[in-house]
């Protein structure tokens, strides 16, 4: 059986789960609560691979045709 690593697909940007400290820093930097972040489901295939839990924040490093590279954040929600 072939092993498929979906993280390597060219349309999938890099996802990194933030540590507790990084998460606090992020929320303080922008003065927001977790609820205000864009969301990602726990059932998302990438979150499954990273073993994310509800309430985690993932840092997403997107390749952008305009900015070169841009970081984006999503909070893991249930669903």
């Amino acid at each position, binding site marked *: 059986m072939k092993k498929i690593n979906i993280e390597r697909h060219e*349309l999938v940007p890099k996802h990194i789960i933030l540590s507790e400290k990084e998460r606090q820093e992020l929320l303080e930097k922008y003065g927001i609560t977790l609820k205000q972040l864009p969301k990602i489901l726990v059932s998302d295939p*990438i979150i499954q691979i990273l073993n994310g839990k509800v309430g985690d924040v993932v840092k997403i490093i997107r390749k952008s045709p305009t900015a070169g590279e841009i970081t984006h954040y999503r909070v893991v929600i249930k669903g």
Partner: protein
Amino acid sequence: MLEELPKSYLGELPRSIIEEVEEVAKERRLSEEKKERLIEEVKKSYLKGKFEPGETVGIIAAQSISEPATQMTMRTYHFAGSAGIKVTYGLPRLIEIFDAKREPETPVMTIFLKKRFNSRKRAKKIAEEIVEKKIFDVIRRISMNLSEGSIEIEPLNPKRIGTIIKAIKEKMRDITVRVKAKKVIIIPKGKVSIGELRKIRERIIETRVSGISGIASVVIRMEGEEWIINTIGSNLEEVLKIEEVDETRTITNNIHEMARVFGIEAARNLIINEALKTLQEQGLDVDIRHVMLVGDIMTVSGSIKPIGRYGVAGAKTSILARAAFEETIKHLVRASVRNEVDNFQGIFENVMVGQVIPSGTGMFDLVAKFEE
């Protein structure tokens, strides 16, 4: 204002601009001091180019996409002898993307092969393997023998009789299969009426013999140095399991399928790519930033939301804004039954009652801090 910004320009300017600055500095052999000044200048014009807080980017994006889209309307419903695969494109496709339809009208896959398997022979072989073949495609004749209550199948190629029997046995339970004079005879167990026999025949015809379910037709073509397989019909999960398929590039045009297999971020990228491709095919030049905004808003909630009353517009918090969009009475009645409150934080509801809208300069309020 500018002086107050931190000196470290890195992290403030986007990666592509930083790279460009570095490149120019290297090319012109700028001294550190001059480079510093260049960066300051670049930073100034970058800040000027940025949207200001309160700018209504959504409306600008909506206009920038829909104005060219109106130009598109007239041309798209025509198909004038196009060769190859007929794929939905133009306005119908654009609507399909933004409505986030479960299944595109013409699901299409682009299958890339791994470098070491890239040859015409290999591509052809894989193409033949994945295309879905039903019993219907591999037989010469199927007939019902009414006096004996059985079905006779005459295969096109007598050598493939084994695979046909196997496929039928896998799908149907209460039948016995026999081979007689190069024909497959299928006898249902117990007594069946003619109507039931006919139903069994229909089911047999539709049974898959080989290939991947959903892949209706396949075309191989050369792009650059590479052989690529294009399919009509899509089944990402199964196609990726094939050894030779490059799982890092193979895509489908079904956004939901992409989200299921590769996650929401990949789906966002696909929405952007597909929408932009559709516009560009029609010779329309829409800035990618507008399309990116649409991609973002469709995926903020973690799942794909269509633009429209069941998706983004339906999720608005303000009752009056929703009522103003579509299905006015439904929203008003529901809101009154549920005792909902409208906080007047959006644009629509404030326009309706003639207040200052929270956008542009109207977005800001004064906050006073009193010393205790």
